[in-house]
């Protein structure tokens, strides 16, 4: 009684395999690795080298439509970034510095990619060598490339000649972040500050860039990116004026 159904079962299953193999060989070869289908196996291996692995060098650099990143996906990622960083630092300054460093790595790439996209079609590609046009292009083009909209204002400090400010009324990356009261100095836009610092550095305007919360009554998320230029930049601008 125990032995009777066993051979029947095995016969049934064997025929089932056979018939399925007969009907759809491709499906059966991917599901089970049957040694009885060598022709299919060689087909599969032969088609692999025909399509070599695509590398970054095979893909065009130009912006394709619908290449935008979902804001909620980015918010999740950025919140993880902040949490990850926060576990590994002591103090707000350290946290901001780390976020700045992360942004710097992004900024280096933003600068190169953005200029390639803008200038590659031009007959004689150009770089920015004056500070104010460079600042303007950060305000519009970098912001547009990274956040999809230009920043809201550029200001020049009245007291210090080497300080400039880029103002964003509602930075998209911190829209879903509410900073606890005891850390009220923290601005997660330090990440953006890092991007700006990398772009300025790349263009040859070394500067220290920091982010500050500057809320107003109507704009609670208003953020100022403060750029403090190194002295060499001002000297160079002075020399280029003539």
């Amino acid at each position, binding site marked *: 009684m125990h032995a009777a159904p066993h051979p029947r079962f095995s016969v049934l299953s064997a025929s089932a395999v056979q018939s399925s193999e007969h009907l759809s060989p491709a499906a059966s070869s991917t599901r089970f690795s049957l040694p009885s289908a060598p022709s299919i196996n060689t087909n599969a291996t032969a088609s692999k080298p025909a399509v070599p692995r695509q590398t*970054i060098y095979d893909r065009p650099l130009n912006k394709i439509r619908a290449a935008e990143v979902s804001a909620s996906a980015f918010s999740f990622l950025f919140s993880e970034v902040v949490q990850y960083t926060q576990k590994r630092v002591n103090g707000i300054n350290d946290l901001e510095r780390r976020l700045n460093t992360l942004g710097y790595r992004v900024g280096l790439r933003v600068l190169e*990619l953005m*200029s390639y996209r803008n200038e*590659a079609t031009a007959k004689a*590609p*150009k770089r920015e*060598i004056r500070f104010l046009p460079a600042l303007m292009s950060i305000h519009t083009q970098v912001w547009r490339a990274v956040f999809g909209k230009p920043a809201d204002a550029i200001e020049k400090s009245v007291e210090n000649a080497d300080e400039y400010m880029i103002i964003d009324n509602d930075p998209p990356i911190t829209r879903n972040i509410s900073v606890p009261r005891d850390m009220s100095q923290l601005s997660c836009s330090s990440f953006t500050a890092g991007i700006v610092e990398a772009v300025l550095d790349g263009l040859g305007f070394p500067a220290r860039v920091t982010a500050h919360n500057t809320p107003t009554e109507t704009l609670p998320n208003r953020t100022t990116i403060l750029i403090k230029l190194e002295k060499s930049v001002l000297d160079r601008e002075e020399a280029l004026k003539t």
Partner: protein
Amino acid sequence: MSHHLFLLSPSDTPLYSLTHYSSKPAQTTATSPLASNLPSWSTSAFAGTLTALSGATSATQAHHAQGGTVRIGGGQDRHVIQMIANASLDVIEEIVRKDNMMYLKSVDKFNEWTVSAFVTPGNMKFVLLHEARNDDGIKSFFHEVWELYVKTMLNPFHTAHTPIRSTVFDARVRASAKKYL
């Protein structure tokens, strides 16, 4: 005719270098036609004879009087080539401050070598040593190298100090050198 390409990071670390021997004949008479038609590795043995035969320019003759090590090719003079490329960095740095073009034509000359450069917005320098004038070809070549470099740079594991070791990058640069130089 040989070309030497160097990619230098903003802090002047060499990331990639390539020596390309072009089969194309010289397009101008800047170098002696006989010398450029011969394979460059053979000129070392016959350098003296060759200059005598082809009526070399005064520049090369003056140079031979100094010791005659530059125009050897094939790897022996690697350090000389590197020195010329490095020496031109000072000139490039100076021009970069004033000129807003990315492609800088013949920034420097050293005997028969002309140095052309291309500077990306991120201050990455591509330096090319060449003998004959070929502005359009070099421009197109730099343009392709630029595209390849931007793609390399998008790799999150690439930093400004990582030497570029990708075989695909190498193959593509060689292909475009073959095409334009």
